[in-house]
């Protein structure tokens, strides 16, 4: 039997702050064990948490990126549980009064996924298992790394919706400078709640939670596996257990994690060491004003206002800095398609070849705008425009000077043209003959020969005009 899958997500995102959320240790990935630890984040007796303003600011930005309300009042709570990666034996999180509530994202297919809340919390440490000795080793470097948890409503009905949502979250958070969204490094971690119900039903089934999904592809495969698994159970008249399952990439399956004997009772209560945070409307607005335009809005602009093909728009949007570069260039010179072509062609090639970032190239958006302007005005040909970009990259300089000194400026002088073209026609008398006999395709060939003979400063438009007249 076929069932309707119902899914909800909990997404943990590490925030791009300089320091940890409740202490002044550096917030970084990697490094030697316990080298970014202080008495505070290792939970030493007598220490107290100190909330990082930057973490609150980025959490608010995550809210704006996902159409949430950023609340004037938010407060912290303790979630109590014992685990060796949690040195205080409680996680500071937000339970009753999260910083952001009631957001949404529209996903592919047009459905709207509601976001219940976004709250701030601290990450736990890492355990490295030593199988030989049968022990684990606790490294607290990650303790206190600031996280937000984005919690959706169970609004997803297909794998595609889930995957699109995760891609959009990653992209929006990157644009907002909130999170680098590297799933493989764990800076964005997705848990999926999934249950099945008969099509047409309104009553959700029992859900299982899948953890350890470290790519968009894994999410798709894990859900597919889980739909299959739960369907088989239901088909046999069985009951799905409410449990946490771990996805194993190598086996492409999910397995129940060892269930705790007692049901979880986290004994949440207000964190007495951290006063609740008051956000004035002015402060909230100031952060809102720092928000860059989100990628989905840019996509609409690129495709609808600028007329770029969907694929090109997506390529430009893949990296915020690339998209920012494009936006700056078209602001100077609104040659949307030309600039898009230059950036997705020559500039992307240079980036790939050198492994450099767009911000590290010695070419500015103004340079690209100028090259595009010359091409649009007919001062240089489109082919020359590409060459000028490469020269700019290799040798530096100013686009117009390069165009001039390297002879890219197209001449509008027809005086010499007649003689050169006559010579081309004479040399290719055979082709001319055939063209005149009705083989229209040969015009391109003759045109090519003419351009070659005229040199790079020649104006292809003029050549074509002259040629057409002479071939009548």
């Amino acid at each position: 039997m076929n069932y309707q899958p119902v899914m909800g997500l909990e997404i943990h995102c590490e925030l791009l702050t300089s320091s940890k959320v409740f202490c002044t240790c550096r917030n970084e990935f990697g490094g030697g064990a316990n080298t970014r630890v202080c008495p505070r984040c290792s939970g030493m007796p007598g220490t107290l948490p100190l909330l990082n303003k930057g973490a609150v600011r980025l959490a608010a930005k995550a809210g704006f990126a996902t159409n949430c309300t950023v609340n004037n009042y938010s407060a912290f709570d303790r979630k109590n549980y014992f685990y060796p990666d949690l040195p205080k034996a409680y996680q500071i999180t937000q339970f009753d009064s999260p910083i952001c509530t009631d957001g949404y994202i529209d996903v592919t297919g047009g459905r709207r996924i509601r976001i219940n809340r976004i709250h701030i919390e601290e990450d736990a440490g890492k355990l490295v298992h030593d199988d030989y000795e049968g022990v684990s080793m606790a490294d607290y470097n990650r303790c206190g790394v600031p996280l937000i948890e984005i919690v959706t409503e169970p609004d997803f009905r297909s794998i595609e919706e889930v995957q699109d949502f995760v891609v959009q979250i990653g992209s929006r958070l990157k644009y907002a400078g909130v999170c680098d969204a590297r799933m493989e490094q764990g800076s964005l971690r997705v848990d999926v709640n999934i249950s099945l119900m008969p099509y047409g039903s309104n009553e959700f089934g029992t859900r299982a939670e899948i953890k350890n999904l470290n790519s968009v592809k894994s999410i798709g495969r894990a859900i597919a596996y889980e739909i299959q698994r739960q369907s088989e159970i239901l088909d046999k008249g069985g009951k799905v257990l409410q449990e946490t399952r771990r996805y194993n990439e190598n086996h492409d399956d999910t397995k129940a994690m060892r269930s705790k004997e007692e049901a979880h009772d986290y004994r949440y209560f207000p964190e007495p060491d951290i006063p609740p945070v008051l956000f004035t409307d002015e402060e909230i607005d100031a952060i809102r004003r720092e928000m860059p335009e989100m990628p989905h809005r840019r996509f609409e602009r690129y495709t609808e206002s600028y007329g770029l093909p969907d694929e090109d728009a997506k390529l430009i949007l893949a990296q915020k800095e690339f998209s920012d570069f494009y936006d700056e260039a078209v602001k100077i010179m609104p040659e949307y398609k030309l600039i898009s072509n230059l950036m997705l062609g020559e500039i992307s090639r240079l980036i790939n070849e050198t492994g450099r970032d767009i911000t590290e190239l010695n070419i500015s958006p103004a340079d690209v705008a100028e090259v595009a302007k010359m091409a649009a005005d007919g001062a240089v040909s489109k082919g020359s425009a590409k060459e000028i970009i490469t020269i700019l990259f290799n040798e530096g300089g100013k686009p117009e000077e390069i165009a001039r000194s390297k002879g890219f400026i197209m001449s509008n002088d027809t005086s010499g043209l007649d003689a050169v073209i006559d010579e081309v026609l004479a040399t290719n008398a055979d082709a001319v003959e055939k063209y005149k006999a009705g083989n229209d395709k040969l015009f391109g060939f003759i045109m090519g020969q003419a351009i070659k003979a005229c040199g790079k400063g020649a104006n292809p438009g003029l050549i074509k005009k002259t040629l057409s007249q002479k071939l009548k």
Partner: protein
Amino acid sequence: MFDPNRTAHLAELSKLEFTDEELLKMTKDMTDIIALMDKVCDFNPEIKPYTLDSVDYDDLRGDTYKESYPNSEILKNAKNTKNDSFVVPKVV
């Protein structure tokens, strides 16, 4: 009202362990103590539970990092360490 099973459940939440004898003693103590605590149960539910005074966002700690502690200082009170880490029994 307080039976040894409930004491045992609380002990598990508290990560405490008692012998049978201790469990009975603790059950008796808890029965007496909770009887005293029951005083609060009929309190006026209209009153708002106390919370700390809030602070303004602007007064929070600025996001700058400082050098961490040398890990020898962090590890020195631990009874069992290896590879600059705290050794714990294997967790599955």
